[in-house]
């Protein structure tokens, strides 16, 4: 999954704060666990994983 697709899935932009991203993830994940499909829930989860990895990468700063 690309970062771009991950952002599209969660409906966020590059400027969206991590907090907002987590909120969207929680909302989408919950709603799909109740009324959506497991497949969509998986995509939402994978999107969050992808953005999380990118976020950690950025947050590390200069590698020692």
């Amino acid at each position, binding site marked *: 999954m690309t970062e771009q697709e991950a952002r599209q*899935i969660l409906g966020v932009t590059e400027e969206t704060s991590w907090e907002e991203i987590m909120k969207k993830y929680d909302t989408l994940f919950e709603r799909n666990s109740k009324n959506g499909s497991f497949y969509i829930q998986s995509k939402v989860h994978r999107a969050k994983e992808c953005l999380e990895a990118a976020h950690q990468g950025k947050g590390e700063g200069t590698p020692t």
Partner: protein
Amino acid sequence: MSTPFLAGLAIAGAALAGKYVIQAWQSFKARPPKPRLRKFYDGGFQPKMTRRESALILGIRENAGTEKVKEAHRRVMVANHPDAGGSHYLASKINEAKDVMLGKTKDGGSAF
């Protein structure tokens, strides 16, 4: 000689074991329903939507009828509606999934 004694012991042992089996079975049946721990599907959406992916997106079988497709589409759309916090991308995928399922259903699903 001591055979009846041994037989009695064996029966008692079996009864005791049976009692525990029944208890375990009852507590198993009465366990609080836990969400099933399924492994999430990997990766993103397919570059070209297939009937299989469409069925997965809508949570229905590949041979589901028109009514089921429409029902599932409505339900999944409600959960992912852009106006209610969903994303446009997911909404478009859900719509595409419905089209694929209905398109194929109309012409019988054969590629030939």
